[in-house]
């Protein structure tokens, strides 16, 4: 790990001021940043510790919730209002990482964690995301975990967050504050898509900080929402593919639908066209199959990963099926697992 200077920020203003000069990096839970620093994939000259900023509360807002950027992942997943109104968010969070990491990792850190692949994490491999202009080591390499949507030759890595996929489905908004004032960006478009040269324009300008995530009222979708995740082992693994689905069903007809895919792109992949198709349909396997096919229309393998397109299609159908069946009162023992048995109805 390179040497760095450490300073704790006592206010949001102080954090923004400290981050306004090059070489600085915010430290919150540290679960991603310290890991990247240990392997030499991140080399900040200064760490600005924001873990004690007063952003550690979950507030009620007009039927929605506003989650501070320093709330720990485990505390979101346990929050009674999250479990009651946004169960797919709790399920997504609980399917990510381990209990120890969820106790440390923050909301803001989860959003800002690096879009990364094994080539990014190997400082000996070229990587446009780590070293702009150096090329992409993953192209033509081992790509079973790489993107099938929204990728370009500059980068084919995926954003690994489960939380962000559920947030995107729930129409969450990222609140950002910086030297130029405050702005809101939808979760679904917050993370940049790559271009031919590399990772694309960073989500945050220099000095900007994520302060909150705002969740709108889920309305009639509160109890018909699920998150489902396929991975190479049942726990403590990134998604091969995942899906967050939420439905509002009235008189046997879908009146509102949400679908977002994870593990497929450099951002959570919101499927607006598929959602629009579902409105007016009856919630059957047939309807969901048609919508899932639409969701993956533009998908192309970025290497030896064509299987992910079919996996994503099937996980989308399954997540919609489970959402239609209704959220169970208690989340399954294996959160978001496709192998959770009777728990998943």
């Amino acid at each position, binding site marked *: *790990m390179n*040497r*760095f*200077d*450490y300073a*704790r920020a006592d206010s949001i203003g102080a954090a923004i001021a400290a981050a306004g000069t090059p070489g600085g990096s915010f*430290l919150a*839970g*540290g*679960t991603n940043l*310290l*890991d990247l620093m*240990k*392997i030499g994939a991140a080399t900040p000259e200064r*760490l600005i*510790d924001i*873990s004690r900023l007063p952003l550690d509360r979950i507030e009620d807002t007009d039927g929605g919730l506003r989650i501070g950027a320093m709330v720990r992942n*485990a505390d979101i997943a*346990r929050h009674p209002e999250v479990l009651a109104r946004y169960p797919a968010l709790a399920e997504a969070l609980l399917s990510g*990482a*381990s*209990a*120890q*990491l969820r*106790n*440390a990792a923050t909301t803001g850190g989860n959003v800002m964690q690096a879009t990364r692949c094994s080539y990014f994490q190997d400082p000996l491999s070229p990587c446009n995301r780590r070293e702009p202009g150096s090329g992409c080591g993953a192209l033509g390499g081992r790509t079973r975990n790489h993107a099938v949507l929204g990728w370009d030759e500059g980068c084919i890595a995926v954003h690994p967050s489960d939380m962000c996929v559920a947030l995107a489905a729930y129409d969450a908004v990222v609140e950002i504050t910086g030297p130029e004032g405050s702005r809101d960006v939808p979760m679904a478009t917050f993370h940049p898509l790559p271009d031919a040269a590399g990772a694309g324009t960073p989500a945050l300008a220099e000095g900007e900080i994520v302060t909150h995530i705002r969740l709108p009222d889920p309305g009639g979708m509160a109890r018909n929402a699920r998150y489902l995740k396929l991975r190479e082992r*049942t*726990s*403590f693994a990134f998604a091969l593919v995942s899906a967050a689905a939420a439905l509002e069903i009235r008189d046997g007809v879908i009146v509102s639908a949400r679908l977002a895919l994870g593990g497929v792109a450099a951002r959570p992949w919101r499927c607006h066209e598929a959602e629009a198709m579902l409105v007016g349909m009856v919630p059957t396997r047939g309807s969901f199959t048609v919508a899932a096919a639409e969701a993956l229309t533009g998908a192309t393998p970025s290497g030896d990963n064509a299987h992910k397109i079919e996996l994503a299609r099937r996980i989308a159908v399954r997540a919609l099926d489970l959402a239609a069946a209704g959220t169970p009162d*208690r989340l399954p*023992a*294996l*959160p978001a697992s496709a192998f959770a048995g009777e728990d998943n109805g």
Partner: protein
Amino acid sequence: MTSTLNITINGAPHEIALDDPRATLLDVLRERLGLTGTKKGCDRGQCGACTVLIDGRRMNACLALALSHDWAEVTTIEGLAEGDTLHPVQQAFIAHDGFQCGYCTPGQIMSAVGLIAEGEAGLDPERVREGMSGNICRCAAYAGITDAVLEATRASGTRTEDERTDA
């Protein structure tokens, strides 16, 4: 520049001069305080051998920057027993053969203490296994570990989720 870390470990306050901000809580425990019960396995948050309680919550000490935890209260494996009386989780690990080589054991036990305090797994073996998935055991003593955690949960007298549902 030297910084001062104020931290309470197993009930005892410490004031530690750190001349390198790179020190993790794991480094401080092992190298500065001689508390080598907390193990360095992967050093990347993947194996759980370094699990400790920070302000009552289980976390990976290898990914906790020490200075970021100024004024924290930390419990390590050395802080569980009361004199010669082992903590119920320690006793349960012995009773159920929850280890072989023992290297992951301190982390397993601290994680189990955290899991039981969280109170969400109850007596469901599947929930216990899921809740303990951040701790790897290379000897694969998982069956014994699960039994030990279940027995310690029973012994702790915490009402389980199932009992709450029935009530």
